[in-house]
């Protein structure tokens, strides 16, 4: 039995095959008159025909129809598109696209559409965009056609395929075409097998669903077998991509942990200072970003895109300066009493939190991401957001810079010397108090940098830091105290473990399991993954 839809398909097939280019242009008035005055069936056919006509005027006409702006002028039966202009409507000749004066609504008859026609119209508009000049529109059209898998659009896609020059879009068109062939009842076996191969090569979740469908619905044994085999291939590829996606999420989480923990690795790892206010240094960095953004918005709106860049050095300086201040006023009196340092810095964190709450209010502050940090892109089947990608890059840059600083500069040399043997370093003429202050300032400054990055992905609130402090300690202890490389490995490993547990255990339980894992791990290796060896450890 032939449905209306397949009739329409048949009709459009006829149109596209029999009439080409010029012949169609001549037929435009005929189609439009069918559209405006014909019966329901005529209109439906006309819409489909217009869609595949490749006619320049087709898009504005159909869009106007969809928007209820296609009219027939009562006086001369001319089809016009009416745009509101004051109380009147500014008219455009639907066929020629030339202005046709103005009219009031009472002089015009609106071309009405019902729900059925609306459906056809939506399909038609989808098809139309296949011929659009904008490659992005064509991509989207191919994508939606692929998902709709309506054999009725076959002629349209064939035509688009013939006209397409871009290889990437051509592939998308081919895939969309394959999806239609798989769904069509009257495609030949060879066509179907070919389509299965095309869909298999696409290899994503949609393709899998389609192949599973084909495998269960198909009556032909060969097609069935091919579809089943293809679905199997796609499934295993997808599993690998899924794992890769998890690894990426893990790396992304790991980079955040690394940023938050690396400052701590310096203060805790090399100075033996438990800085519970470390999270608040991160929070101060985030608030610095907020202040910079507001200032730039107020005084130089053109530079708003770069406010994050401006915030980086400022956040480093703000948090670093406060770090030096803390070291000079509180921490230096508590060296050798780590548990007391812990309590004092916890108190400090409460003071800083309340101070920020008093100044900026308890609610979340909004920090906008610049455009170059928003959006996503696809790498194979991987979804990667630019923001996360930048944070990973940034974390690695900070890590590399810190390594360089510690290994290649005089300050780094002093820091390592003081860490390893304070009295000896002092005897060699290093001013250990100054090095202590700078080291603490450096650790805090890096926390400030972390704050800039976290302001892009987390809520900027007075509690921002608290959420990271325990995780940061876990990373440092897990990686091995006093070893920056251990912190890198620890952060990445914990990030990946967390993300692999999440699908099975859920986010919260996953986190709990990671905590329990670390508690048990510390029992096995009390000094972490990469423990320092030697007498200075005790």
């Amino acid at each position: 039995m032939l449905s209306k839809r397949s009739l329409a398909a048949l009709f459009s097939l006829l149109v596209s095959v029999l009439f080409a280019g010029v012949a169609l242009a001549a037929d435009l008035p005929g189609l439009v008159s069918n559209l405006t005055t014909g019966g329901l069936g005529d209109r439906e056919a006309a819409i489909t025909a217009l869609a595949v006509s490749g006619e320049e005027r087709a898009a504005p006409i159909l869009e106007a129809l969809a928007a209820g702006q296609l009219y027939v002028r009562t006086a001369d039966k001319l089809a016009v598109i009416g745009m509101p202009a004051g109380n009147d409507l500014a008219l455009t000749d639907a066929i020629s696209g030339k202005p046709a004066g103005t009219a009031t609504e009472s002089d015009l008859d609106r071309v009405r559409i019902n729900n059925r026609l609306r459906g056809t119209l939506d399909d038609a508009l989808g098809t139309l965009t296949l011929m659009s000049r904008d490659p992005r529109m064509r991509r989207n059209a191919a994508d939606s056609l692929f998902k709709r898998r309506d054999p009725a659009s076959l002629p349209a896609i064939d035509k688009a395929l013939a006209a397409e020059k871009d290889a990437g879009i051509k592939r998308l068109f081919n895939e969309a075409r394959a999806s239609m062939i798989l769904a069509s009842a009257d495609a030949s076996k060879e066509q179907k097998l070919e389509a299965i191969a095309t869909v298999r090569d696409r290899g994503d979740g949609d393709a899998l669903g389609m192949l599973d469908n084909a495998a269960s619905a198909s009556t032909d044994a060969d097609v069935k077998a091919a579809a089943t085999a293809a679905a199997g291939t796609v499934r295993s590829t997808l599993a690998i991509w899924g794992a890769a996606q998890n690894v990426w999420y893990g790396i992304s989480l790991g980079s955040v942990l690394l940023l938050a923990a690396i400052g701590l690795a310096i203060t805790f790892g090399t100075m033996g200072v438990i800085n519970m206010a470390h999270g608040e240094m991160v929070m101060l960095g985030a608030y610095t970003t907020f202040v910079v953004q507001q200032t730039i918005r107020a005084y130089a709106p053109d530079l708003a895109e770069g406010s994050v860049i401006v915030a980086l050095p400022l956040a480093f300086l703000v948090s670093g300066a406060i770090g030096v201040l803390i070291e000079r006023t509180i921490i230096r009196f508590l060296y050798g009493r780590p548990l007391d340092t812990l309590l004092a810095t916890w108190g400090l964190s409460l003071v800083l939190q309340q101070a920020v709450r008093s100044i900026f209010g308890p609610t979340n502050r909004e920090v906008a991401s610049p455009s170059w940090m928003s959006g996503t892109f696809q790498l194979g089947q991987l979804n990667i957001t630019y923001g996360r990608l930048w944070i990973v890059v940034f974390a690695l840059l900070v890590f590399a810079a810190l390594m360089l600083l510690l290994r290649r500069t005089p300050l780094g040399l002093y820091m390592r010397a003081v860490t390893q043997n304070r009295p000896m370093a002092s005897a060699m003429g290093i001013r250990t108090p100054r090095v202590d202050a700078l080291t603490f300032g450096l650790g805090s400054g890096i926390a400030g940098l972390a704050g800039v990055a976290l302001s892009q992905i987390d809520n900027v609130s007075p509690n921002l830091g608290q959420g990271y402090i325990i995780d940061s300690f876990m990373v440092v202890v897990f990686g091995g105290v006093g070893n920056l490389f251990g912190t890198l490995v620890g952060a990445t490993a914990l990030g990946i473990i967390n993300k692999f547990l999440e699908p099975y255990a859920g986010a919260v339980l996953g986190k709990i399991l990671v905590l329990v894992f670390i508690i048990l791990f510390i029992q096995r290796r009390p000094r972490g993954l990469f423990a320092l060896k030697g007498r200075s450890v005790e």
Partner: protein
Amino acid sequence: MITRFFWHGLDRYVRVMVAVVLIIGLAMPLLNLLMPQSSPLYVSAYTLQLFGKYLCYASLALAVDLVWGFCGILSLGHAAFFALGGYCMGMYLLRQIGTRGVYGNPLLPDFMVFLGYKELPWFWHGFDSFWFAAPMIVIVPSVLALALGWFAFRSRVTGVYLSIITQAMTFALLLAFFRNDMGLGGNNGMTDFKDILGFSVQAPGTRAVLCFASALALAIFLAISGAIVGSRFGKALTAVRDAESRMRFLGYRVEGYKLFVFVLSAAMAGIAGALYVPQVGIINPGEFSPGNSIEAVLWVAVGGRGTLIGPVIGAFIVNFAKTYLTGALPEVWLFALGALFIGVTLFMPKGVMGLWAQYKARRARPKRTAAA
């Protein structure tokens, strides 16, 4: 006889403290019950509840002090033991509600009906009886402390590392108890308690008894701690705090000492938590938050670690200030708390008790010079 052992083993100041706690703990509820409201000696129900709460906090502080002040283990997870004891009591109290809940289900507490539970989870069985719940209040925190301590002390996790893993433990429990799937009330916790041992928890008489029970518990904990600290075992404990490696080389099994005190301290915290819950009328996962544990450590630091009286005084001072400030000047409270943390560690490492000792030393010195 046992009482005599305790009494004689006790330091003079601890004896005074035990007596003071018992007398005030008896007087406050009696003044509430017997005095007419117009009398200046009348203790309002609110004050009584507050006092009972402080007594529980003081017990928690004492528990922290026992491990930190005398054994050098800075636990940042004692609020977890406190909360576990509280949850055991909460489970008992919730089962006592019976059909008086919103949904009137005779077996399942309201939140389970709400979450669509069909039957009671296995770990809820038995909690309808007080004589099952009461030992659980001690056993659950102790077992957790035993497991954690057994592993940690045996692998010689000490100092800051131990602090961090105890903090991780309480954080993990916080996350776990926030989950609705835990079957323990999720983030709302447990509340709306009706009866304890057949008496209404709202009744003045019950409240008075609960308050006295808290005082009694604190007094007993003080006595036990005092007896332990004063004994040979206590001396060894202090030695472990000051020179762990040397004690090990001398042939002492350091792990055993630490484990014993840690478990005892956890049990004390659990009982304190169990007494706390019926008085405040709610228990929720917020009790597990790492901040609570650190605050308990602060009480000890303020009062004076390594003394038994200090933590009790510290808990009262800090909590009184907290009640007053959060009511009168809520903005200021966190500044004050933070400043207290910093000030106490920098200027009063021995807390209030240290000030007392300093004062005594200053008075004693001129005398000696005069004699010489």
